[in-house]
């Protein structure tokens, strides 16, 4: 196995709030292989977006380490940080607010080229911009248009083109299709997949949509209240979910198929906010199998089958 492109070790990101310390990301560790996709799933407020933003250093980590191609990037500053960002880019969730409404499509895509002075002259900038528009399937006639004149799918293509401009090795996709209609969603997912095949880009793919992540990822990590509770290859996770939360999550997906009837597990209660957590399993309150240990300590992520990691006392 080759060296992973990204290694995250015991990463923490806490926020101070009025009611206490919010553990948005709490001791998350994982590796991402070259050219592969790791899907991170979880419900709103589980910290998956914070995780992505901390890795690309839009947020300062509270603790832990991030290695990119074997290099520690946790504490990079100034120029070094800006240079690091050429390698790792981000596609955002909201195709409305992630594009500056005052800039035209051309200007938005050209911005990274200009910032890093990748082009020789103005014509070169334009040529590269148009090339990028071609790559993401955006007709050249949109070059001078403004984001609000385009629909969600096209806007998301602009975001992807902007991320590609720096020829990154890795892209963090933060819910890139959740604001889009299904027919457009499929277009964007196919585009991302194509780019991975032709350019060998690695993805960290953050989403709440399990069917999307199943289709798109090689490995899937399930997050609950800031912690990874299960991680396994996609097929394995869907065939053999072990953590009770993963089981419930999978059974809750409505399946557009009337020929297969499934048993549904309905969880009690709601997702809590991860503020001032006691030392106990954070899923305990909603879990259907509570052991004594669950109330005493937080379970660690352990490999229970090859490549299949679970944090649950039931499997220890």
């Amino acid at each position, binding site marked *: 196995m080759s060296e992973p492109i990204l290694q995250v070790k015991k990463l923490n990101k806490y926020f101070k709030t009025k009611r206490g310390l919010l553990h948005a990301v709490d001791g998350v560790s994982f590796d991402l292989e070259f050219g592969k996709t790791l899907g991170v799933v979880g419900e709103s407020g589980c910290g998956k977006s914070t995780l992505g933003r901390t890795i690309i250093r839009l947020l300062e980590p509270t603790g832990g380490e991030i290695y990119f191609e074997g290099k520690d990037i946790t504490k990079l500053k100034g120029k070094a940080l800006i240079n690091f960002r*050429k390698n790792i880019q981000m596609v955002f969730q909201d195709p409305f607010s*992630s594009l500056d409404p005052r800039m035209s499509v051309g200007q938005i895509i050209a911005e990274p080229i200009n910032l890093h002075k990748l082009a020789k002259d103005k014509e070169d900038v334009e040529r590269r911009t148009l090339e990028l528009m071609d790559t993401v399937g955006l007709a050249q006639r949109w070059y001078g248009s403004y984001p609000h004149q385009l629909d969600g799918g096209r806007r998301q293509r602009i975001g992807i083109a902007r991320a590609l401009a720096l020829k990154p090795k890795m892209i963090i996709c933060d819910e890139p299709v959740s604001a889009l209609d299904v027919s457009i969603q499929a277009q964007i997912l196919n585009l991302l997949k194509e780019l991975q095949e032709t350019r060998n880009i690695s993805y960290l793919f953050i989403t709440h949509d399990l069917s999307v992540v199943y289709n798109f990822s090689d490995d899937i990590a399930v997050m609950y209240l800031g912690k990874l509770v299960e991680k396994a290859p996609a097929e394995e996770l869907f065939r053999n979910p072990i953590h009770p939360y993963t089981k419930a999550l999978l059974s809750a997906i409505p399946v557009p198929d009337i020929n297969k009837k499934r048993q549904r597990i309905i969880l009690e209660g709601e997702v809590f906010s991860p503020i001032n957590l006691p030392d106990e399993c954070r899923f305990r309150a909603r879990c259907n199998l509570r052991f004594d240990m669950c109330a005493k300590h937080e379970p660690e992520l352990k490999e229970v089958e090859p490549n299949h990691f679970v944090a649950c006392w039931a499997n220890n």
Partner: protein
Amino acid sequence: MKGLRKERGSSGFWGEVLKEFKKNKGAVTGFIVFSLIVLVAVLAVFLLDYKTQITKINIPEALQPSSWKHPFGTDQFGRDILNRILYGAHYSLLIGLCAVTISTAIGSMLGIIAGYFGGLVETIIMRTMDVISPIPSVLLAICIASAFGQSLISLMLAVGIVTVPAFARVARASVMSVREEEYIEAAKAIGASDINIIVKHVIPNSLPPILVQATMRVASAIIVGSSLSFLGLGVPAPKPEWGGMLAQGRSFLNTSTNMTLYPGLAIMITVLAINLIGDGVRDAMDPKLKR
């Protein structure tokens, strides 16, 4: 439901604002009237002679009613009220425009800095504003105007300074909401520096509320300016400032309504025109209020 318009390279934000503005009848009327006032103000300064036509005392012709010779009549010194109003236009316009330029420049700069950087800088700036803003603005303006002596410049400064906190607040709020947008994060992610982000993304996007505020404030600055002159703290007589002319008219309410009626009407029309423009600018920039 958003229509997908398919025109290539359209005009962008400012083009759309202009288009919206042009659709607004009131705003266009306001703009035309305001342009005429500006034109009149400039022409009057050049064409009317200050010594002979504006300030020359001519007691025999005092307090005349409207006539062909003096359409708005004459004041207690026999001076033609129409001429004085035309000549006085530039005082009010200068006070309104300069005062707002001062407060917009200072206020929004402070607000942008406070909003973007936050922390201690923000605390210092905003606490200072908190100290200035509870002082009733007319009283503060009176204070400042009298501190700098009775002159046009001190009046502008006075009217300008009292609105600085308002601009700082608007600018800060605007910047803070822009700062939360994902495109700021996106710019950071592609490696843009703070200065870059402020100049290219934050300022252009936080401008609309500041501009709306500025337009509206020109109107109120003209009123505050003429109020101060009315109280005897503004442009000194015999200069024909509209507020000052009204103050003189007070002594002749019984004998000459003209002296009170016309200068006030002039203030009102000017302010109305600017308010119409302000409404137009606001509606054109704020898609939320449309429909």
